[in-house]
């Protein structure tokens, strides 16, 4: 049995310790918001937070998670979509097919947590590992800045 703390809830799963966290989340815990895209940490669709850090769950064995707190896109604000990144994404109509956007949102959420006012260069560096085949990059860039703005306004208030 492996114990995982996911979105604030303690979960027990009986799996091969080598199973990547991605498949444990999707197939066993039914958290399908986290996506499979490449399996080799090249595309970022599987991005989740481990203790607040963005990680590629497709290459992280479930046994390596240890006591770290896992946050998936479902745990960002539930269905309400009230996280600043989600608000900004909706405001600027970022999504197209939407498949990569869970990973984009998680990468962006980690970025603005660590950097309250990211520049273009900061965004390029932080988001370069997340591929979007619909090419929503210009809107992601604008929406990260907008999300940081929403977050700053929220913090100030």
């Amino acid at each position, binding site marked *: 049995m492996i114990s995982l703390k996911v979105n604030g809830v303690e979960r027990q799963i009986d799996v091969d310790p080598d199973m990547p966290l991605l*498949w444990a989340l999707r*197939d066993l815990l039914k958290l399908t918001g*986290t996506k499979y895209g490449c399996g080799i940490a090249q595309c970022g669709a599987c991005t989740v937070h481990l203790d607040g850090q963005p990680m590629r769950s497709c290459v992280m064995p479930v046994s390596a998670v240890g006591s770290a707190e896992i946050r998936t896109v479902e745990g960002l604000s539930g269905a309400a979509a009230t996280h600043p990144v*989600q608000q900004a994404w909706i405001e600027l109509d*970022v999504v197209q*097919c939407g498949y990569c956007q869970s990973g984009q949102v998680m990468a962006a959420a980690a970025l603005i947590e660590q950097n309250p006012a990211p520049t273009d260069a900061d965004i390029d560096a932080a988001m370069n590992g997340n591929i979007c085949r619909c090419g929503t990059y210009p809107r992601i860039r604008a929406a990260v800045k907008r999300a940081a703005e929403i977050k700053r306004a929220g913090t100030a208030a």
Partner: protein
Amino acid sequence: MSADGSTPAIGRRHFLIGAGVVAGGLAAGTLLRPYLVGGRGGAAPKEFKPHAFLRIADDDTVTVIIGKSEMGQGVYTGLPMILAEELDFDPQRLKVEIAPVDPVFNHPFLPAQFTGGSMSTNTTYESLRHVGAMARSMLVTAAAARWGVDASTLRTEAGKVIDTAGRELRYGELAESAAALPLPAKETIRLKDPKTFSYIGKPQKRLDSRVKVTGEAVFGIDVDLPGMLMATVARAPVFGASVKSFDDTRARSVPGVVDIKQVPSGVAVIAEHTWAALKGREALSVEWDDADGKKLSTEALRSEWQALAAKPGIVGQNIGDTAKALASGSRRIEVEYELPYLAHACMEPMNATALVKDDDCDLWLGTQSQSQDAQFVAAALGIDPKNVRVHTTFLGGGFGRRASADSDFAVEAAHVAKGVGKPVKVVWTREDDMRRGYYRPYSISKVRAAIGADGLPSAFHQVIVGKPVLANTAMGKMAVSKEGLDPSSVEGTANMAYPIPNLRVEVHNTTEAVPILWWRSVGHSINGFVANGVIDELAALAKRDPYEYRQAMLADKPRYRAVLDAAAELAGWGQPLPAGRHRGIALQESFGSIVAQVAEVSVTGKEVRVHRVSCTVDCGIAVNPDQVVAQMESAINYGLCAVLESEITIRDGVAVQGNFDSYPVLRMAAAPQIDVRIVNSDGPIGGIGEPGTPPIAPAVCGAIFAATSKRIRRLPLSASLS
């Protein structure tokens, strides 16, 4: 849509597909019609259902049912908007439901439910307006009866019928009475004067944003059913090969593996979860019958095709006398263009879930081609197509791949699930997806062209070599001439916007074992590059500016000129640029829309950086202008991948590239600034998903020529500049 999620525009009902199934169990009839699953709890509302596209409930819920697949292009917003316009209802308050497969949702030109060819808006515009107007008229009739007034004295606004005294009835309050009325005759329905439109032509926020930023949206790969098993398939790495024998002893001992079976496409490993299915497949040993296929390589095809391109082919276009004009032209070029196989590389790898029971099959998948999937699956299982139910999910990208010629991923899932008695989801890895083929065709063209005394093109003769796209789909019979001409092979030059007095386009159809398929903008992404590239070469031969040269060619085509001039103006063509930056320009008409782009590029050694793209588009009516902009951004960035680094090469019968490490695509740091301007015209509605892709490659390569005097005739640049 409000950001707090209080008015989720795509209703929860839709996303209860999975949950409803869990609640209802496999025996429940609702499983077979997921669009009916869900509901609000308590008594079912009384509903007004004037058409398969629309339901209005007595609680004012207005649900639009969309038969087109949402793959990012915005049809779950743009199409409902059209209906809402005539209904007089705020689109942001709509619920959108994914349609079942039903002939009422068929494409008007094809006897099938199909999403592709950038045709969703222009082929449904009139019918959606009509349904909205009909429903509105019936609600007005119901209100008139209730108030005892003449219907002509009433007006509608934002979901209410209003009388001259200011009394109001909400649509929900009228739903039950409207439902009792006979449907009015079609000729009595009056559509709005477009000048009075409230929604069409004004930016409307996407209705599917919230579910796509919370992880709620259900893609094919997310489908979850009771008792469902997961599967992977070991497919022949060599194109055209088949299974000779296999040993599954080790694979069967992998914990979680449930069964292993041979299917037509390879050997399937069925397991309790994806990881076991992957580990089981790794433990398989399969011997393939692949001796013939191993001879195939891009290198071998290249030399064969280069020779073929020197010979006459099937004539696809013949205007004037090209041979004579070439002989008499004062200045000539003879050049060869080469474009690689390209994978679609949808973010969501292919997958499908099937439940097969006796003579009956349910399929859950993201597909562009529901009707064909049902037919091909029925044929594969030997059952009646009426007994195959296709449940469409969101598509994690399509770009043509999810309308494959033989419904490969749907049919394979049915084969895998046959005899299992439980739903089986076949998941493809990225490598499976990338190495399986269904590529944009590899293409080699030889072009001879000349300019006349006025410096403008006098002759253009192209011989194309490549595998034809439509001929290799179910549309082949309809589309291909008896001489073997597939119009998709020559589109983009045979019908180019630039008038050429002597134009001849010929084609050689190849038959290599690599499956090919339509790839966003089909022939235009290949021939649009050749056409615009050659025009640039001729402009240089005439010592003229590539923009001014195009202006001169399009002098008598005002719609085209307007788009071209607007792009040049947006880009500041002719105005100074920062040191090291250069511009290129291209224009291509495809799918009924005209797009021009100016790329601003710098070249440092072998490194090409695209800084900015200015894009103009005339698509007739832009229903949702901000999504037209979004599709231009998307199509440019998709096309840029093909310019910069993406290519599939074949060696020893195998696709060399298998994942994003070897098949690089555009990423954030390389993504240019994109400025889009919609050029309004009174032209017919054009497509928007694809037409933004063709101009970007020639625009970038024109800029590289301006920077380096090097003419790029082979893509990607990583192959050309190495």
